[in-house]
């Protein structure tokens, strides 16, 4: 067990109680005495911006519903089904001219249907959605072959305009998705922004924090461990697993597991794309057409797909070959200045040139950079608890060692808020023979030291 090294936690160079003195900087957060702008005008500007977004969302939503969703809904719910007869067929060409004067054509089968409405014969060309057109004439012709002149067919006509007839029903889910997604996002963004503007209208940040806090308290009750210790994360998940030798077994937060999950997800998704591409190319070849672009794409995609599978299995092999690590501790949550027993158990048959167990303090800050949300982590304090050299496991027996952990007497407690975290953890770092380095992390929660009265001064008032 290493003794506490006090030099790492240096005392503050400034006198206790001395105010922080800073040089003026242009882009830092403003602190101290200051006159603010006109918050009401700021809220008004934000309110106008979000109202514009809300109105845009509603307008686009109404247009898309009227143009896409409502006609499709009417076909499925209001059109009347009748038996008809195919009396004519042909190809309809749709020409789309671009701004440079070029033309793009699309084709679709056009079918003349005869059907009876209230004793009267009606003849009409069928109506199709633009998504049912084909960019190749040959494909549209091929589709046209499926329709037999004089054949009976089911059709649906519009009771409000009996000349409008369709030959199939159903919904295009992606059209509905488009119709709802874009305006839905705008409406959601606008409404949330408007609510925020209303909430901040004429209110200071302290007042908002108090009112928000009260709202949240009515919906959630904090876990028992955090009662009386605001901002200290709950440690329910760290004390629900009893150890075999010591009181608690700590769960692991292994970065290897996350990289394995990441590699697996990437490999799975990439290879799905490769399979779809290969199936498409296969159909093309079977149909006597070979798309050289697709064939050219397939080769590098397949190489990347195979490499990702190999990487995934390599990671899986590394994790399973090295074996699991267990850490048990005699008490939890931890308190500054206290001593704890820690049991380290490393299973597997791999020999290690070096195994090191550390106690670390890590800070984590989440911030916005442009439109990105970034998280930065920094280990700000590290203490080596024990190092073992040339660890040779015995067959069928894990490597086990019990060590003492001394927490610094003036250690910071664990702290977790929306954007900032200060967390303690036990970290095992190993250098196996012939394998890449191993890092396994076991989070712990540190509470403030037991209350010692600091009331040793004479009150001023």
């Amino acid at each position, binding site marked *: 067990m290493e003794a506490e090294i006090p030099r790492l936690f240096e005392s503050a160079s400034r006198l206790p109680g001395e105010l922080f003195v800073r040089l003026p900087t242009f882009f830092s957060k403003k602190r101290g005495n200051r006159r603010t702008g006109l918050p009401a005008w700021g809220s008004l500007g934000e309110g106008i911006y979000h109202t514009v977004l809300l109105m845009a969302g509603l307008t686009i939503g109404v247009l898309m519903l009227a143009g896409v969703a409502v006609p499709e809904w009417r076909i499925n719910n209001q059109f009347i089904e009748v038996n008809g007869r195919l009396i004519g067929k042909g190809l309809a060409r749709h020409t789309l001219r671009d701004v440079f004067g070029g033309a793009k054509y699309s084709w679709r089968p056009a079918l003349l249907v005869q059907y009876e409405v209230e004793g009267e014969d009606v003849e009409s060309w069928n109506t199709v959605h633009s998504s049912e057109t084909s960019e190749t004439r040959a494909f549209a012709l091929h589709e046209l072959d499926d329709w037999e002149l004089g054949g009976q067919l089911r059709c649906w006509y519009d009771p409000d305009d009996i000349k409008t007839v369709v030959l199939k029903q159903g919904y295009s889910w992606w059209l509905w998705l488009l119709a709802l997604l874009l305006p839905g996002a705008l409406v959601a963004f606008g409404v949330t922004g408007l609510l925020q503007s209303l909430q901040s209208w004429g209110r200071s940040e302290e007042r908002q924090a108090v009112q928000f806090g009260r709202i949240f308290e009515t919906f959630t009750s904090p876990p028992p461990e955090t009662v*009386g210790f605001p901002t*200290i994360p709950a440690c329910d998940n760290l004390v629900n697993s009893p150890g075999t030798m010591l009181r608690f077994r700590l769960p692991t937060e292994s970065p290897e597991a996350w990289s394995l999950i990441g590699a697996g997800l990437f490999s799975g998704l990439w290879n799905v794309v490769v399979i779809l591409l290969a199936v498409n190319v296969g159909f093309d070849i079977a149909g006597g057409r070979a798309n050289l672009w697709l064939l050219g794409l397939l080769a590098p995609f397949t190489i990347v797909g195979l490499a990702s599978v190999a990487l995934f299995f390599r990671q899986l092999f590394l994790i399973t070959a090295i074996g699991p690590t267990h850490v048990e501790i005699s008490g939890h949550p931890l308190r500054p200045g206290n001593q704890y027993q820690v049991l380290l158990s490393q299973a597997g048959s791999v020999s290690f040139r070096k195994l090191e167990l550390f106690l670390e303090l890590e800070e984590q800050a989440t911030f916005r950079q442009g439109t990105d949300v970034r998280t930065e982590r920094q280990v700000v304090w590290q203490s080596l608890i024990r190092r073992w050299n040339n660890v040779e496991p015995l067959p069928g027996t894990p490597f086990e060692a019990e060590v003492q952990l001394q927490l610094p007497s003036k250690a910071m407690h664990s702290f977790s808020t929306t954007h900032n975290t200060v967390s303690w953890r036990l970290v095992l770092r190993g250098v196996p023979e012939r394998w890449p380095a191993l890092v396994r992390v076991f989070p712990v929660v540190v509470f*403030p030291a037991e209350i010692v009265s600091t*009331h040793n001064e004479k009150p001023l008032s």
Partner: protein
Amino acid sequence: MTESKRVDQNTLGSYRIQPNPRISVTFNRENIQYGGGDELRTHYIVEGIESQSISAVERSVVWYTEGKGEEDLGVVFFERIQLERRKDSTQTSSASLSTDHLTGALATDLPQSPLSYEGIIVKIRWCVRVRVFFRSGRDFVSEHIFFLGSVPVVRLPAKIET
């Protein structure tokens, strides 16, 4: 001058750009060092401002984070005092600026956490805030730092080799 005209001019006067007030806060500990569960008692004075130009005063005890991350804020004490407009007051010129004092006191029990912390990318500060709202819509805020706990400043490099 009739009563109504006096009120109108006084209203206009309250919308003038006011000089920044001076806000001083006195703590019940000389070294402004507190522990979790201790009682914080402070007394504040707002000076150098016409009291009739103030619409409200908010006083609060808060902690906030500084550093690389977005700011997180916690409020352990908050009180807003809405000031009534004194309609019977007479107009005062800038030459005869009122030296009225706005004073107040607050007391609250401090929580066990979070303790004041001076890390590398995360810092936690405690302060008493006095926020003065002017009738013009602007406000002036004054922060007075104190310390909860005695966690030492973290300094890099921090790697230990034994």
